[in-house]
């Protein structure tokens, strides 16, 4: 494990040398002080005007999660078939924002687009996690259920009660993620919190921006008080009613998207030029079209995405290892513990996209803001988990008194395997985030996808998204290989 860790640290150091970490803004610190002033003078009154955006954020999340759960259960039932497994890996490898880009030309910039952008990747995630929960659950109770009882009866009596708590917990956690996704989707123009957050930050109205952020934190922290299982059906129903007023689906658009917009430009060019919209087909121009994109955009995008991912992978690990003792009962007093605990929650609650957006405003577009944004968000998630796991470690009565000894000899060895497994588990997530932050002007794959969308080149955007997917699935299998070789697992951890 140590060897592998050091190997990845070495890669990250090389990547760090190659990364562009420049601060390009002229007065980063004045802007920061204005931002800090906004943080202590939030414009709460402005929230009243933005209530609809807050409501939309929640509505999108409910509808998206609901559809994701329904589709996910269906897919989980068939998860033992390899094509289904692959399909799930495929749809979850595409970030919500990229999904929104894909749905944009089909359904337009409206709530349906936002809901689908959440539902589809989440369905892939739910399918995988539900299937894993069932697989790892205690199967003995099922033995007591007569074999001839019929699939559904066997499931509700022999499996569902056993997995219910884990599934509920995980789905609840995912709802929190969906709120983040929903908020972020505002950054590309959907009517959620992110839309106003972006406007406020861009125009420097920091008091309003902070009010929105605080509202978002309160929304997430208060989840435990209003997200009761028995109320969920009501919430979902109301959300769909609210959403239904704006559903617009045009078959014409869908058909055109799949049969025309999607096709590589060389196939459409002649038809566009002579106005007939005819489709022509020839290998050579298509190959050179693909080649062109690779040479000018894709390779650079891939390179930067990988460099950024490797830096944040190790950065996240370091942040987590340094931060978790502060939130762990074996190292600090009760009050310091609570403060660190909530500190980590606040950092992990802030979507990495928003963190990156703020940092880009401060430092200008380079890898520096992206590194810190992904590192802080994931590091806080991981640190929180590690501290929870470390809290479970019973310390022997004659354990070393000095904290550093305790850390190195008692706690770290016990939590390191799980920590590493979880870090590698997040590897794929970090890569997805690295790609997406390109939208903010960092030259990762997202930058080129965003440009293609702005230029109305859907064919090119789709090709680049496919490349991102392949990269993601590649990283996922490397991660699985590493975890398998090190014989480490994230088991015991139910929230990811």
């Amino acid at each position, binding site marked *: 494990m140590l060897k592998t860790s050091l190997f990845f640290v070495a890669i990250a150091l090389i990547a760090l040398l190659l990364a562009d970490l420049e601060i390009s803004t002229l007065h980063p610190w004045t802007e920061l002080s204005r931002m800090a002033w906004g943080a202590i003078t939030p414009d709460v009154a402005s929230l009243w005007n933005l209530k609809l955006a807050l409501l939309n954020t929640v509505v999108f999340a409910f509808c998206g999660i609901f559809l994701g759960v329904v589709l996910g259960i269906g897919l989980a039932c068939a998860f033992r078939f390899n094509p289904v497994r692959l399909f799930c890996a495929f749809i979850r490898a595409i970030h919500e924002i990229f999904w929104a880009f894909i749905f944009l030309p089909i359904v337009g910039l409206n709530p349906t687009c936002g809901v689908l952008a959440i539902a589809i990747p989440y369905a892939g995630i739910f399918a995988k996690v539900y299937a894993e929960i069932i697989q790892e659950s205690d199967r003995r109770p099922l*033995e*007591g259920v007569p*074999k*001839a*009882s*019929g699939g559904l009866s066997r499931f*509700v*009596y022999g499996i569902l*009660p056993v997995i219910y708590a884990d599934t509920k917990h995980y789905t609840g956690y995912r709802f929190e993620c969906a709120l983040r996704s929903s908020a972020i989707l505002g950054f590309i123009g959907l009517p959620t919190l992110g839309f106003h957050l972006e406007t406020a930050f861009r125009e420097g109205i920091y008091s309003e921006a902070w009010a929105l952020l605080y509202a978002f934190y309160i929304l997430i922290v208060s989840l435990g008080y209003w997200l009761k299982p028995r109320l969920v059906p009501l919430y979902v129903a109301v959300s769909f009613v609210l959403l239904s007023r704006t559903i617009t689906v045009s078959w014409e658009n869908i058909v055109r998207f799949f049969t025309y917009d999607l096709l590589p430009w060389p196939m459409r060019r002649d038809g566009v030029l002579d106005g007939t919209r005819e489709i022509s087909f020839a290998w050579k121009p298509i190959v050179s079209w693909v080649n062109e994109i690779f040479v000018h955009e894709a390779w650079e995008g891939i390179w930067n995405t990988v460099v950024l991912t490797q830096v944040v992978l190790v950065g996240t690990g370091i942040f987590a290892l340094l931060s978790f003792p502060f939130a762990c009962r074996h190292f600090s007093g009760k009050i310091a513990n609570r403060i660190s605990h909530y500190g980590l929650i606040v950092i992990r609650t802030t979507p990495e996209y928003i963190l990156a957006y703020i940092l880009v405003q401060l430092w200008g577009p380079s890898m520096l803001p992206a590194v810190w944004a992904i590192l802080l968000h994931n590091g806080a998630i991981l640190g929180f988990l590690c501290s929870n796991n470390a809290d479970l470690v019973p310390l022997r009565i004659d354990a070393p008194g000095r904290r550093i000894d305790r850390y190195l000899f008692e706690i770290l060895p016990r939590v390191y395997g799980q920590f590493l497994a979880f870090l590698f588990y997040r590897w794929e997530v970090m890569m997805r985030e690295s790609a997406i932050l390109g939208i903010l002007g960092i030259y990762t794959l997202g930058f080129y996808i965003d440009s293609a969308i702005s230029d109305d080149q859907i064919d090119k955007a789709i090709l680049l998204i496919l490349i991102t997917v392949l990269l993601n699935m590649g990283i996922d299998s490397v991660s699985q290989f590493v975890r398998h070789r090190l014989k480490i697992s994230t088991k015991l951890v139910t929230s990811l």
Partner: protein
Amino acid sequence: MKPSPSTELFNLTAESVAYENNIVLKNISLQIDRGEKVALVGPSGAGKTTLLRRLYNSVADQSAFVDQHYALVLQLSAFHNVYTGRLDQYSTVHNLLNLIKPQKKVLQEITPILQALGMEEKIFDKVGAMSGGQQQRVAVARAIYRGEDILLADEPIASVDPLQAGTVMEIIIQNTETVVVSLHAVEFALKFAQRIVGLSDGEIQFDLPTGDVTPTMLTELYRNGNSL
């Protein structure tokens, strides 16, 4: 119920079984007829569980099994766990309804069984919150509720206190035509079974009517196991 003579139920001849945990049955020959009440005794690791599972596999669709580890759904109530014994006899719709709201008819069927086992007050308690002895009685109740003619039970009174153990055995023996039960407590085997099969180290050491089993044979049986 009087068994008609020579209705053979189990017939193993010179059978060897290798099972997970390396417990192996060596060269077992065993005939059991309908209507017999047989106890399997022997030290831990003798192969009692393996033999019971082997027997169960040949009559799975017409028998009930009491698992040594209860195999209960800890998250469900005693009532629902007992009900799973007959899941295959009701429609899926009925099963779902009964999960949401216990049906009167089912309740009337299950209450007397749990009552007889001294568990009527716990009927709607979650099994996960119960003691081992209580869980074991729920497992027995489920097997009884299944209502098959054959019952195979693996240590069904291991966790039940000695006072109730007699009641549990009584219920098992009286409600089912054919019973094969493995027992750690030899005195219960002597009291309730008509026939005792002594097993150690995967082999049958003796197979006799209860009256013919002597204390020396039992001592010998357990000594064999311990020396290995």
